[in-house]
C-alpha cells in the first residue's frame, strides 16, 4: 500500500511536468497587440484601394432624439485586460478600457486626426523641442477634483521610471508646470512623433492625489481614478469587466449607461454569441467567421484596413540575400494575391509598401512587385544563381506555417528550394534576434499611428535584432531619411520624406511585403451609434438600441 502511494505521488509530479511540456509545445500567438492610434496633423492618407469606408450604423448626433431604448451594452473580446494602471500596460485590450476610463492630453478622432482631449490646444516651439499644452479648465476626475498641470507633470515623470512607458517618454528632458492649466514638455532633441505619442493610452493622465494615496494598490478596481467618460465598476479576470457612465464627466455625456466586456477567446464562439444576440458587438471577428456574419441579416460586418502588415523578411547579411537582385527576384516570384485570398480569406489587401496603409505617411504611389516568375528567373541568373539555391525560412504558428508552404511552392517555380523550420514563438524570436536566419515571416502592428513606428525600429541600423530590424539592414540613406523625418516639424515635408523612404525601401527590398489585414467588427444590425475608428480604437459611449 505504502509503495503504491509513493508511486502515485511521483506520478502526480510527473503528470504536472508532462502537462507543462505538452502545453509549452503549443503555438504561441505572434500578433502584436499594441495599439494606441493617433494620426499626425492633416490626414494625408489617401483612402485605401479596398476594404471600404467605415460603415456607420447611425451617427452619434442622433442619440439625443428621445427614442432611446436599451443602453447597457455587452461586447466581446478575444483576451482579457492586463492592468488598469495605464503605465503598466501597452496592449490593445487594456488600452480599449483605459481609453474609456481615462483621458489623455490629446486624442484622435475617427478619421485619425489629432484633436484635443484634456488639452484644448498645443504649440510647438520653433526648433521642435518643446510642446506646450493648454489644459481645459473644466476637466475633472471622476471624484470631482480638477485635472491640473501638476497631475500631467506627475503622470509623465512617473512614466519615465516605469518599464512599459519608457520608450514613449525617452525623448523627454523635463516637464514644466507653467501654471495650473498649462504645461510644457521639453524634449532632448526635435522629435515630431511626440505630437501623437501623447495620445497613447499608457500616458493617460493620472490623479497625483489618488496614485499617491493608493501606493502599490493603484490599479485595483477600487483604486483607480480617471477623468474619462466611464468608471470601472467590476473586473472578474478572464471572464468580464463592467464600466459605467461617469456622471461627473466634463465633456459630452455618453448615451450608453453601462458597457460589459465579455472575454471569449475562441473566434467561432465569439461570432455565435453575436448571432445568438448574447453580445451586441464583437470587437474582432476572425477572417474565417466573416462570411457567417455577412450571411446573417441580424448582424452586420464592418471592415476597414487595420494598422498591421504581414511580411516575408530576408536577412541581408546572409550570402545570397546580400544581393539586391535576389531579394527583388523573390518579390517578383511571389503571387501576393494568393496569400490574401487563402491565408486571410480575402479579408485584406496586398501590401504595396513597407508602411501600413492606415498610417499617415503611407503612399499608394509605390506599386507592389507584380507576379512575374520569368523576371524573377532573369534576376536570379544575373545574380549568378541560374539554377536557384536552397535556403531556410523560420516561422511560428499554424497560419504562418501555411504561408511558408505557399512561399515554398511558389519559389520552387523559380528554382529556389525552401526548407521550412517551425518554431515556438519564444524560440523563433531568439533565433531571429541572433541573426541565424535567412528568411522569416512576421507581422508588425503600428502602435503609435505615426510612420516613425513603422520605420525606425524596423529599418534603422541601430535596431538590429530584438528591437525590430530583423532583416539586419544597415543603410546610411535609410538611417538618414528616418532621422530627418523624425526631426522634421513641417508635416507636409515630413510626409514627403516618408514617401521617399518607401520608394527607397521598395527598391532595396529587405522584405517582400505580403498583405494588410482588415480589421473586422461585428455588430447587431439594429445597434445604433457605432462608428469605426481608423486606428481600431472605437468609442463605445454612443451605443444604444431604439425602442
Amino acid at each position: 500500500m505504502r509503495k503504491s502511494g509513493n508511486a502515485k505521488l511521483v506520478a502526480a509530479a510527473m503528470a504536472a511536468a508532462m502537462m507543462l511540456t505538452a502545453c509549452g509545445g503549443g503555438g504561441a500567438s505572434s500578433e502584436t497587440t499594441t495599439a494606441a492610434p493617433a494620426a499626425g496633423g492633416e490626414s494625408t492618407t489617401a483612402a485605401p484601394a479596398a476594404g471600404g469606408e467605415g460603415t456607420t450604423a447611425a451617427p452619434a448626433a442622433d442619440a439625443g432624439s428621445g427614442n432611446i431604448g436599451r443602453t447597457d451594452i455587452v461586447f466581446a473580446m478575444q483576451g482579457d485586460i492586463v492592468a488598469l494602471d495605464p503605465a503598466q500596460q501597452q496592449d490593445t485590450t487594456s488600452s480599449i478600457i483605459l481609453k474609456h476610463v481615462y483621458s489623455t492630453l490629446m486624442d484622435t478622432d475617427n478619421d485619425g486626426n489629432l484633436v484635443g482631449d484634456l488639452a484644448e490646444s498645443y504649440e510647438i516651439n520653433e526648433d521642435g523641442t518643446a510642446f506646450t499644452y493648454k489644459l481645459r479648465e473644466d476637466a475633472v476626475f471622476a471624484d470631482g477634483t480638477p485635472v491640473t498641470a501638476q497631475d500631467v507633470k506627475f503622470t509623465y515623470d512617473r512614466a519615465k521610471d516605469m518599464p512599459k512607458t519608457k520608450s514613449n517618454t525617452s525623448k523627454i528632458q523635463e516637464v514644466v508646470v507653467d501654471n495650473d492649466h498649462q504645461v510644457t514638455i521639453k524634449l532632448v532633441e526635435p522629435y515630431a512623433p511626440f505630437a501623437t505619442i501623447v495620445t497613447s493610452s499608457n500616458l493617460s493622465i493620472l490623479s497625483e492625489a489618488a496614485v499617491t494615496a493608493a501606493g502599490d494598490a493603484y490599479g485595483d478596481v477600487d483604486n483607480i481614478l480617471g477623468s474619462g467618460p466611464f468608471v470601472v465598476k467590476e473586473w472578474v479576470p478572464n471572464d468580464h469587466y463592467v464600466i459605467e457612465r461617469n456622471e461627473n464627466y466634463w465633456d459630452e455625456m455618453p448615451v450608453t449607461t453601462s458597457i460589459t466586456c465579455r472575454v471569449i477567446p475562441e473566434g467561432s464562439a465569439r461570432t455565435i454569441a453575436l448571432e445568438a444576440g448574447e453580445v451586441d458587438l464583437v470587437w474582432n471577428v476572425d477572417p474565417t467567421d466573416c462570411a457567417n456574419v455577412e450571411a446573417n441579416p441580424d448582424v452586420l460586418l464592418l471592415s476597414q484596413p487595420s494598422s498591421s502588415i504581414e511580411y516575408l523578411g530576408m536577412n541581408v547579411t546572409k550570402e545570397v540575400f546580400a544581393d539586391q537582385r535576389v531579394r527583388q527576384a523573390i518579390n517578383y516570384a511571389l503571387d501576393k494575391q494568393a496569400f490574401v485570398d487563402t491565408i486571410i480569406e480575402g479579408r485584406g489587401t496586398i501590401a504595396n509598401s513597407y508602411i501600413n496603409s492606415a498610417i499617415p505617411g503611407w503612399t499608394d504611389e509605390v506599386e507592389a512587385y507584380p507576379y512575374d516568375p520569368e523576371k524573377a528567373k532573369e534576376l536570379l541568373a544575373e545574380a549568378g544563381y541560374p539554377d536557384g539555391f536552397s535556403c531556410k525560412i523560420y516561422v511560428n504558428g499554424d497560419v504562418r506555417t501555411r504561408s511558408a508552404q505557399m512561399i515554398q511552392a511558389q519559389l520552387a517555380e523559380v528554382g529556389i528550394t525552401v526548407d521550412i523550420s517551425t518554431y515556438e514563438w519564444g524560440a523563433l524570436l531568439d533565433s531571429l534576434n541572433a541573426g541565424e536566419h535567412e528568411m522569416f515571416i512576421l507581422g508588425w502592428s503600428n502602435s503609435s499611428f505615426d510612420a516613425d513606428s513603422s520605420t525606425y525600429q524596423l529599418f534603422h541600423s541601430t535596431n538590429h535584432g530584438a528591437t525590430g530590424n530583423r532583416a539586419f539592414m544597415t543603410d546610411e540613406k535609410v538611417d538618414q531619411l528616418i532621422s530627418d523625418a523624425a526631426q522634421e516639424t513641417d508635416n507636409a515635408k515630413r510626409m514627403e520624406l516618408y514617401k521617399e523612404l518607401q520608394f527607397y525601401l521598395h527598391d532595396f527590398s529587405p522584405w517582400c511585403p505580403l498583405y494588410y489585414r482588415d480589421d473586422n467588427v461585428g455588430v447587431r444590425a439594429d445597434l445604433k451609434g457605432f462608428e469605426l475608428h481608423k486606428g481600431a480604437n472605437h468609442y463605445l459611449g454612443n451605443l444604444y438600441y431604439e425602442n
Partner: protein
Amino acid sequence: MSRYILKRLVMLIPVVIGVTFMVYFILSLSPGDTAAMIAGETADAETIEAVRKDLGLDQPVIVQYGKYMLNLLRGDMGQSYKSKRDVFPSIMASFPNTAKLAFWSILVAVGIALPIGIISATRQYSMIDNVGMVAALLGVATPNFWLGLMLIILFSLNLGWLPSGGMGGWKNYIMPAITLGTGDAALITRMTRSSMLEVIRQDYIRTARAKGVPEKKVIHKHALKNALIPVVTVIGIQFGSLLGGATLTETVFAWPGVGRIVVDSIKSKDTPMVLGAIVLLTITFSVVNLAVDILYAFIDPRIKAQYKRK
C-alpha cells in the same frame, strides 16, 4: 489510518519542491527571452532592459529560484510578470470555477458510465453492450473542442436554449459539463465493464448464485463493490486532471478557469503565474489521490484490514 494520512501529507513537501525546481528550470531553459516576451513585440532595447531589471531577471537563475522558494516558504507566491498582480489571489479567483466545472463533469461522467458499464458487463455481447461500447469508443475519440462547438451551434445558435459561454446560472454549466463528462464517461464505462466482467467470473459470485441469491443482489452487492476499485482509481485520476483545468473546453466556452491561465502564462513566460498554478495543482492532484486511496478502505474490507495491521 491518521498516521498514514499525515505521512502522505508530509510527503507533499518534497514533491512540491521537486516540481517547482523542475518547472523553474525547464521554463528558464526553454528558448525565448522572458524580458522581451513580457515587454512585447514592439518594445525597444531600452524597454526590454528596463523590464529585465524590474523583474530581477538580470540575476542568475539559481538565485532567482532561491528567492522564489524563500518567498514561497513565507506563503508568498510573488507577482505576475505580466500584470504585476499577486499570483495567489489571481489563481484562487479562477480555481473555484474549475473545481465547480470538474465536479459537475465527473458527475455527468459517472452518471453515464456506471449504468452502461454494468449493463454491458452483465449482458455481454448483447445489443446494449455493443451499442454502449461503440458509443464509448466515439466518446474517447471525439475531440472536446469539436463537441463543444457543435453543442454551441445546436443549443445556442439554432435552438437558443442555452448560453454559448461564460459563467452565470446553472444553464452555463450544462454544455461544458457534457463536453468534458462524455469524454471521461467513455473511459470509465470501459473500465467498469472490464472490471465487472472479471469479477462476475469469480468463484464467490458463482457461490452466491448457487445459494439462490437474487441476481440483482448478486450484481449490486457482491460483484459491483469488488469491481469498483479500479473504477474509483480511474475516476480519481480523471477528476484530478479535470481540476487541473481543461484548456480547450475552457477556451471554447469562455470559462474563466485555471487551464487557460496556465497555458496563457506559459506562452508569455510568466514564470510566477505558471509556478503558482503548478504548485496548487500538484497539491490538489496529490490530495485527490490520497482521497482515492482512503476510499479503497471503505469499499474493500481487505484493504481496511491492512491499515489496521500497520
